[in-house]
């Protein structure tokens, strides 16, 4: 932080300004469509920030992180389906269930390392995915429509208002970055980063890294659960596709694209990733023919993501 003049930071600021002003500027330009689009981008941003917490700072490559999006969203969806629409019940429960699932999955997968960890997080997420596909009562493959958004029971705050919805998401986005900033710079974060660079050494000085990692895993799961409950409210719809392994792969990509273990990297990464998808998808239905190789090239030539690219360019100048 601090070096505000760096190109990466200017870019971050630009993205944040775009996010902040869209509901004001977009209708004026007759492009109200972008309010929903950017709201969606910000939700993915929250999910990416949560993944960065364990992947960027902890070195834990979870290939099933989208599952918590799904769990947060399905908790809201299923409660609404049964007539429970109060946010005071829905939201704590959505966060709690996400955290609980993260606790169980983390306890299992953190016993393993490296590629085993990648595959197990993938497989466990896939398990929940298939569970949602087989849940006929809640729409199976076709998903579940949510008839009423979460209600706060007060007159001045309703998610049915588009601008309120948008800025609620915006605040949660900023909050997620703030929480990860506080965590990373705490003793807790120091242990996480130390364990990432040398797990054995940290353990040998008497710090049990498993507990720390599990805690981080649970926090990340809960944060992603928040993204999920926001998504359910934004789209008024949940479906198994939200937690398919494609989504988990995309989340990893957003984090890497923006720059791992940087605070705002996941936010800009999500923005660039989704913006590019949006633009390419507008060109042709076969847009993955361009997008796929683009991702490959990013991995091969642009390690460190946008932040890395911009920083390197700046250093050269």
């Amino acid at each position, binding site marked *: 932080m601090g070096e505000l003049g760096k190109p990466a930071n200017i870019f971050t600021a630009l993205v944040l300004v775009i996010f902040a002003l869209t509901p004001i500027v977009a209708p004026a330009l007759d492009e109200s469509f972008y309010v929903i689009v950017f709201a969606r981008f910000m939700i993915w941003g929250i999910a990416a920030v949560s993944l960065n917490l364990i*992947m960027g700072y902890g070195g834990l*490559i979870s*290939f099933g992180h989208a599952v918590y999006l799904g769990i947060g969203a399905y908790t809201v969806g299923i409660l609404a389906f049964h007539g429970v629409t109060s946010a005071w019940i829905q939201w704590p429960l959505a966060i709690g269930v996400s955290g609980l699932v993260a606790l169980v999955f983390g306890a*299992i997968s953190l*016993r*393993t390392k*490296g*590629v*085993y960890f*990648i*595959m*197990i997080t*993938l*497989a*466990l997420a*896939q*398990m929940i995915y*298939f*569970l949602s*596909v*087989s*849940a*006929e*009562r809640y729409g199976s*493959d076709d998903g579940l429509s949510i008839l009423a958004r979460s209600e706060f029971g007060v007159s001045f705050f309703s998610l049915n208002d588009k601008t309120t919805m948008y800025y609620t998401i915006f605040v949660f986005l900023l909050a997620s970055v703030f929480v990860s900033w506080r965590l990373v710079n705490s003793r807790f974060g120091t242990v996480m980063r130390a364990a990432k660079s040398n797990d054995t050494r940290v353990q040998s000085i008497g710090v049990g890294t498993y507990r720390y990692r599990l805690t981080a895993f649970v926090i990340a799961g809960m944060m992603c659960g928040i993204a999920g409950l926001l998504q359910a409210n934004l789209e008024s719809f949940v479906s198994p*596709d939200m937690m*398919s*392994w*494609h989504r988990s*792969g995309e989340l*990893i*990509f957003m984090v*890497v694209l923006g720059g791992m273990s940087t605070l705002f990297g996941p936010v800009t990464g999500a923005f660039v990733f989704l913006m590019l998808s949006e633009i390419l998808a507008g060109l042709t239905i*076969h*847009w*993955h*023919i361009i*997008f*796929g*190789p*683009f*991702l*490959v090239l*990013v*991995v*091969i030539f642009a*390690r460190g993501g946008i932040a890395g690219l911009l920083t390197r360019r700046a250093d050269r100048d």
Partner: protein
Amino acid sequence: MPRHPRLHADHRPPNGLRNAMDYVLLTEQFLNGFQLGIILFLMAAGLTLVFGIMDLVNLAHGSMFMIGAFVGGTIAFVTGSFVLGVVLMVPAMLVIGMVVEVTTLRTLYPRDHLDQVLATFGLILFFNAATRLIWGLEGLVVPLPDYLDGIVSLGFGITYPVYRIVIIVIGLLVAFGLYLLVGKTKIGMLIRAGASNRTMAGALGVNIPKLFSIVFGIGAVLAGLAGLIITPITQAAIGMGEDVLILAFVVIVIGGIGSIRGAFIASIVTGVIDTLGRSFLDVVLLLFLPANAAESAGPAVSSMLIYILMAAILFFRPQGLFPPKGAG
């Protein structure tokens, strides 16, 4: 994600709940599970070889499954011979696999697993889109020749489709062939040398890049074969390899990454448990749940069964059941 046809046809009779436990159905479902296991093994063998030897996580292995089905299926359609489709698919997949290895994957060997996952994820998107561009959205139906399309009696009142037996036989032959290839031939010796110590094998004059290309080509052929031989049952669809890929991951995690023997045993176990779970779990649940609860919990729990199995195995043996000797 498009909806994929299940890998295993459901043979359950409509009134399955009442007489499901009879031995004819049990045997049939066991064979179906075995056949699913064979398909998983063909996928897992290539995956575990590539991982064990090159330390490469290759998601695009699922694309090889799909491409094998589409390429082989098209050859079968053009020539009018399914057998010719299978035969010509082999050199085609060998070439495609080696091209992918040389152009993209080769640069990924020194990278960490994260980079490998991401780059091969990009490859999947590309291959899915390319397949859709060439063959369209509808997929491809590959009909069986008449002589493979029948049903054969196995005695004791058990009948079984000929073609599924053919799949099982092909799979067992390939497994045996792989065992011979890796254990008894010169190239197998080089593969094992490369797996246990890449640098030393290179220092002793083994052409490591060429060896890797060949191993990758073999893996692509095995995946393509799996995709092609399952196609007459399920038909070829875009993204068809992905569910199988993840199941194959489960298999090699259970079996121990890098172990072909582990992959074989874990494939069969996974295939059988998954299939039997889907057919009989609701009956088992009836023993201690009320009927309507059992009927709704059955499909949910059975779709989770192998993942629970995997979690349980890893809980006690984080390295899988058969970790290969010497591999770190």
